[in-house]
């Protein structure tokens, strides 16, 4: 038992506990926040493995962006964001599926790595420069594929933005003044968005 082991156990317990709370919490915002704690715990685990760049990226991307995205998603929909609780009748089913998945993963990991022993030395420190060299010389193609993936996400965002015109919520039908002159349907579809975009001027 070294000091590092103690810290690791503490981090692991917190991370695991938060993960359990994420799926059992009956309040959606609480679930998202517990997810945040879980992801932070994983970041701390990376830190304990001496991968400090990955740890920071974990915090910046997962905690800083993805969980915030979830929270904004909850604010956007009619999801219950107040104190009301929710439950699903599919609970037994979900338990069966997750237990099965857990079993499969445990068996897989034990069979694949069970007998491997990593030398118990000081954690090997990897510099950001090494990581950069690896990405930009060995893994060039995957890196460019990532940009394609992000491109797809951006196009998705464009579609999402284009679907709604004006404000969200109940669609207020703004009758364009030009309707009297030209009441083609195309004009009607476009007009509210134009009227709504007051910020552009």
């Amino acid at each position, binding site marked *: 038992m070294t000091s*590092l082991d103690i810290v690791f156990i503490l981090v692991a317990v917190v991370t695991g506990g938060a993960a359990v709370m994420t799926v059992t919490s009956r309040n959606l915002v609480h679930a998202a926040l517990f997810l945040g704690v879980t992801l932070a715990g994983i970041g701390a685990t990376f*830190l*304990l493995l*001496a991968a*400090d*760049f990955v740890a920071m*990226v974990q915090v*910046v*991307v997962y905690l*800083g*962006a*993805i969980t*915030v*995205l979830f929270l*904004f*998603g909850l*604010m*956007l929909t*009619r999801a*219950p*964001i*107040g104190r*009301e609780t929710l439950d699903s009748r599919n609970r037994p089913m979900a338990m069966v599926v997750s237990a099965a998945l857990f079993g499969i993963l445990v068996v897989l990991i034990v069979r694949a790595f069970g007998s491997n022993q990593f030398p118990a030395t000081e*954690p090997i*420190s990897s510099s*950001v*420069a090494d*990581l*950069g*060299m690896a*990405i*930009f*010389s060995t893994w*060039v193609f995957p*890196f460019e594929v*990532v*940009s*394609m993936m*992000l*491109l797809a*996400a*951006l*196009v*998705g*965002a*464009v579609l*999402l*933005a*284009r679907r*709604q015109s*004006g*404000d*969200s*919520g109940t669609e207020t039908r703004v009758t364009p003044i030009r309707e009297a002159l030209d009441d083609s349907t195309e004009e009607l579809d476009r007009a509210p*968005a134009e009227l*709504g*975009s*007051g*910020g*552009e001027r």
Partner: protein
Amino acid sequence: MLADYLPVLLLFVVAFGFVAASLGVSALVGPRRPNPSKLSAYECGNEPLAQVKGTRFSVKFYLVAMMFLIFDIETVFVYPWAITTADLGWFGFGQMALFLGLLGVAFVYEIGRGGLTWD
């Protein structure tokens, strides 16, 4: 490397101690005189009407979070590249130019379609 983070932990202890002490002392010495007005939501003196329950926000906020995620990932890739580009030369520059170029085109398209126009 982990030893670098010990002072960070100490700073955390100092900061947390300061905050906890401030709130603790305030809770001990501060008065406690609740009344119904204090305990209800603040709505400029009106009877609290609105509820958080049904509140919905413009899809723009979600869009901003989505764009933030995409650009965050991009920034995270730019950092290791920025360190190694001196060794990689024009090859590294080309990689990042392609990466940012693809995203830039989509970004310009999005701006052109009014995706980021607030109203």
